[in-house]
């Protein structure tokens, strides 16, 4: 009922509607508004991306420190006996295999990172 009343009023209030169609004096919509705002939006996206990466690094560093600490604590007995270890028993083939594996995974990590970062941008 009241909504209908307001609707009737809006139809009658021609003068008010026309007055509102006129922009306030000396106010004009800038012609380059969309362009300038879009630049700011891109900058905001870049900043947000940087914030996200920084936060990721902080979390990663914290996880690494905790893992190393935990690993050290769990392997404390092994470390204690490390000094008594005879390095003559180490098989060179297994060392080479380990180096190759680490190199392979490091390269794969680099490739995937580059590939997906490029696609996202």
């Amino acid at each position, binding site marked *: 009922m*009241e*909504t209908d*009343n*307001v609707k009737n*009023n*809006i139809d*009658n*209030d*021609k*003068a*008010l*509607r*026309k*007055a*509102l*169609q*006129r*922009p*306030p*004096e*000396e*106010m*004009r*919509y*800038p012609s380059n*508004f*969309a362009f*300038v*705002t*879009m630049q*700011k*939006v*891109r900058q*905001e*996206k870049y900043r*947000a991306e940087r914030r996200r990466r920084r936060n990721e690094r902080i979390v990663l560093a914290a996880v690494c420190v905790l893992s190393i600490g935990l690993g050290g604590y769990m392997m404390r007995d092994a470390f204690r006996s490390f000094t008594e270890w005879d390095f003559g028993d180490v098989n060179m083939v297994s060392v080479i295999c380990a180096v190759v594996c680490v190199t392979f995974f490091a390269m794969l990590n680099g490739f995937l990172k580059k590939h997906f970062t490029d696609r*996202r*941008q």
Partner: protein
Amino acid sequence: MTIQEKDERKLIASVLGGHTDDFSYFLERYGPQVFSVISRLVPVQEDAEELAQETFISAFTHLADFAGQAAFSSWLYRIAYNKAMTFLRSHAARHTLRLDDMNIEAVDESLADEALSVDTEERIAVLNKAVGMLSADERMLVTMFYMEEHTAREVAYIMGITERNVIVRLHRVRKKLYLLIKRMENGNR
């Protein structure tokens, strides 16, 4: 859901998927309207421009929060309104004319009807000035309702008040405008 709303949903999904450039559609489509609404609340060119830009940047950063409970334009206006009100609160508020509540309530609805329907050039000019004397809330209300032609429900969503409150305030603003017109026209004589 209209075709335009469906297309906008697709564009929103695309922007959220990383295609930032698709956001330019919303700037082209709603930029003039958002600026127009803000310029009614903050009638200083540089401030209005900055607030309109902040509105769109805020919309972009919170795009994932747009749940679609209202039209995208209403959501944008809601952000614009909040930005403008925060700005007005933090800066020295513009002087708005205070009228006695008793005087406003005493005005007959039919007088306001008549005063707001006569669309002569002189009346329109007086009304334009009278709108500038309203408080920011009241200006937002009449701008949304008369200029943007939103429904009372949409205005309620944008301004964060109830639908009933919108209707009560609209009646009051119409009476206030009548008193302002009368005062200005009497002052000119």
